[in-house]
């Protein structure tokens, strides 16, 4: 099974990289951009056919390693 894990900074946590990208987009002539938040996309391939079990395992991976719950949130997307 394939899965995608989207990791993002919690809302309210300062994202200096997002701010820099926002600034660069303005400089490039995209003044309509109001805000940019940057995160990570982690793609996983795991040997598990049961979606519920796969999701539970990935939840644990997120808590233990893939995201830092102090400052990040995550969203799991099972692809197939």
């Amino acid at each position: 099974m394939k899965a995608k894990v989207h990791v993002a900074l919690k809302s309210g946590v300062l994202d200096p990289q997002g701010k820099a990208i926002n600034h660069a987009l303005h400089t490039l002539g995209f003044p309509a951009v109001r805000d940019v938040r940057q995160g990570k996309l982690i793609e996983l391939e795991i040997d598990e056919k049961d979606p519920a079990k796969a999701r539970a395992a990935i939840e644990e991976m997120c808590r233990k390693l893939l995201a830092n719950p102090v400052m990040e949130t995550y969203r799991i997307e099972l692809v197939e």
Partner: protein
Amino acid sequence: MDAAVIVFPGSNCDRDIKVALAQSMGKEPHMVWHRDADFPKVDLIVLPGGFSYGDYLRCGAMAAHSPAMREVVARAGKGTRVLAICNGFQIATEAGLLPGALMRNAHLQYVCSDVNLRIETNQTEFMAKYRPGQVVRIPVGHADGNYQADEATLDRLEGEGLVALRYCDPNGTISSAANPNGAARNIAGVYNDERNVLGLMPHPERLSDAALGGTDGRLMIDSLVEALS
């Protein structure tokens, strides 16, 4: 007194702290490879600066789960002193030894300079040789030293005297101009609740010998050696 320095792939300040500890202790610390969870009983464990695992995923995230770190967490829970410097501080927060997180510097630049720091309290084994409120000058070198935690945690750290060091101006005044990385409330270092773990972004080992330009950092190492000998 015996000490151990945990060496991760990508650590690069491990030998500096080894030299500083050896000068202060009069004998060499154990150098422990990150895969080795079975290292001698020691009074002090140092997590050194560097770029463990190339800072992959998040600074310190991979190192926090190495076999040696699982042992460090277990021993810290039983009272062993842990000094976590720079990347070591990042590893300690990722491992749950210390609250909060070290985020990308607010200005996005790597900062490499001497900074002024105010010793918030000297009532710990790490700081006994400083005066409370003393301003010391110690180098920092990092891209991810922006200490952040939620407001409740920051209030608790301040209220319980767990803030170890703050970035300040030469007179000891806390200001945003003296903050090199955007850290919340100018925090440069924090203790755990039991005060047996200290994490800090500045590098005391880089200013621990007159030949290096000063000894402001040496007092931290000497404080520990005196307390644990």
